[in-house]
């Protein structure tokens, strides 16, 4: 059976060039970069080369890059690190309500510990209004953390408008760019970003590879203490192979900008057009234009996401959903809730993320299958039958 991955944000294959670059550092060049002797030389150089490539992707200096094992770790280092270093200055943190759980859950804990946390609302597309940020900044604000793009609905924030506000007050601005790095051009200087999180596995690097950018002069305390690796901000023998993987993936993403994302946007837009033409009562979640190139989030009205996901899997199509039934916590997506998607539409949400193997040739198959399973599930849906009986008067406005 045909297999089509439309869930690349969950996992993507490691680029073969990346893998080839990594492999020697498991065996041939196994040395410890901290060693004073010859065995450490090659790994040390490779680590610094990787740092240079990661820095290049976001317009930073190599010395400003801290390797981590994930974007979640980078988010933890950013927030806990700033909070620890800036405790005397204040106790107020601002973030958006649609941050990743690796940000939100830390903030919940900090709140219990006595910090004041403000979660900014977003508009129907998921965009933070700079005026709202301006209104919430106080003398006690020690950190603002707002993602560059949302991993679920793909919405890209007007980050320079937000950083302009923190910059004038001297408040560090952290952005979780796990979903955005490698997909949209980033320049930390032009965008006014002080700390930035990225994840290698989001752009064909290996899982377990992440990094935090910390602008020179911004004070961060370590959360893993020990040796002085990574400028003392992350103790532990460096994972050279993973860092090399991240660096190589960053180099390839930088070189492929903007061709690679542009190619994916074209396919994504064709897919979107095809789905909306063939399936009635479909809703787009997120911004029509200001969104990540590989992201498409739609709600199939009257049906539930897990059932859709299972039916699509039977047709060899792999997707993800923001439905409560697909989450372990049985809660529907906090992102869809924050942008005001009604519960029944959040239940029927599908997150489609494109990647390397995505192509226009598969679009008719995907469209046919989604149209089929939507019809099948709608025919057994009490909401759909109610809609048919009551006519189109109550239909949601597209």
């Amino acid at each position, binding site marked *: 059976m045909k297999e089509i991955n439309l869930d690349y944000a969950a996992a993507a294959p490691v680029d073969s060039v990346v893998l080839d670059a990594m492999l020697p550092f498991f065996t041939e060049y196994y040395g410890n970069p901290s060693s004073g002797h010859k065995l450490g030389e090659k790994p040390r150089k490779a680590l610094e080369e990787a740092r240079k490539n990661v820095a290049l992707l976001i317009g930073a200096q190599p010395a400003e890059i801290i390797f981590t094992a994930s974007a979640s770790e980078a988010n933890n280092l950013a927030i806990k690190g700033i909070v620890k270093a800036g405790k005397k200055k204040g106790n107020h943190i601002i973030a958006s309500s649609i941050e990743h759980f690796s940000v939100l859950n830390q903030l919940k804990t900090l709140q219990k510990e006595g910090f004041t946390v403000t979660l900014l609302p977003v508009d129907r597309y998921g965009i933070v209004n700079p005026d709202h940020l301006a209104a919430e900044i106080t003398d006690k604000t020690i950190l603002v953390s707002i993602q560059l793009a949302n991993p679920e609905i793909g919405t890209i924030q007007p980050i320079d408008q937000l950083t302009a506000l923190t910059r004038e007050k001297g408040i560090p601005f952290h952005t979780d760019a796990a979903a955005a790095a490698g997909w949209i051009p980033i320049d930390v200087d032009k965008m006014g970003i002080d700390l930035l999180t990225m994840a290698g596995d989001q752009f064909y690097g290996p899982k377990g590879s992440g990094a935090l950018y910390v602008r020179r002069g911004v004070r961060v305390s370590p959360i893993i203490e020990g040796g002085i690796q990574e400028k003392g901000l992350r103790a532990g023998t460096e994972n050279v192979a993973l860092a090399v993987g991240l660096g190589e993936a960053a180099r390839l993403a930088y070189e492929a900008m903007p061709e690679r994302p542009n190619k994916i946007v074209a396919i994504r837009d064709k897919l979107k057009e095809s789905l909306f033409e063939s399936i009635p009562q479909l809703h787009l979640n997120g911004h029509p234009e200001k969104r990540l190139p590989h992201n498409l989030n739609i709600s199939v009205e*009257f*049906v*539930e*996401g*897990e*059932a859709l*996901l*299972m039916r699509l*899997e*039977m047709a060899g199509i792999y997707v993800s959903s923001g*439905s*409560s*039934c*697909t989450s*372990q916590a*049985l809660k*529907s997506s906090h992102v869809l809730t924050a942008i005001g998607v009604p*519960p*029944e539409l959040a*239940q029927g949400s599908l997150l489609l993320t494109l990647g390397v193997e995505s192509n226009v040739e598969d679009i008719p198959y995907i469209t046919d299958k989604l149209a089929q399973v939507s019809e099948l599930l709608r*025919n*057994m*849906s*009490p*909401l759909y*039958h109610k809609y048919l009986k009551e006519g189109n008067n109550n239909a949601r406005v597209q």
Partner: protein
Amino acid sequence: MPEYSDKVMEHFTNPRNIGEVDEPDGVGEVGNPVCGDMMKFTIKVKDNRIEDVKYLTFGCGAAISVSSMVSEMAKGKTLEEALKITNKQVAEELGGLPGNKMHCSNLGADALHKAIEDYLEKEKISAKSSS
């Protein structure tokens, strides 16, 4: 995909008795889209037996399989027997449900029982008005 039993997958793939019976004798609705699942059972009763039963379900794989299983279990049973079908039995008949999906099985028998109670209520009223 969650780890569903073969029986759950079989009912999900080929759900039985979908729809609404014509001029139902009893209707039972449970759930709402906020919690994730909605079920509507309609029944036709003849000589104290469930002659026909159909359902409409908005929900996950487990919810659809549970509806299908409940409809199969109820068909042909007397009202007393059908009222004794428990959510636990439905889950057992399906070869078990993942822990976080047990709440789906709770809706199935509830919706059926509501439909039966709706029928009994209507019977009471018509018996009263005819006496």
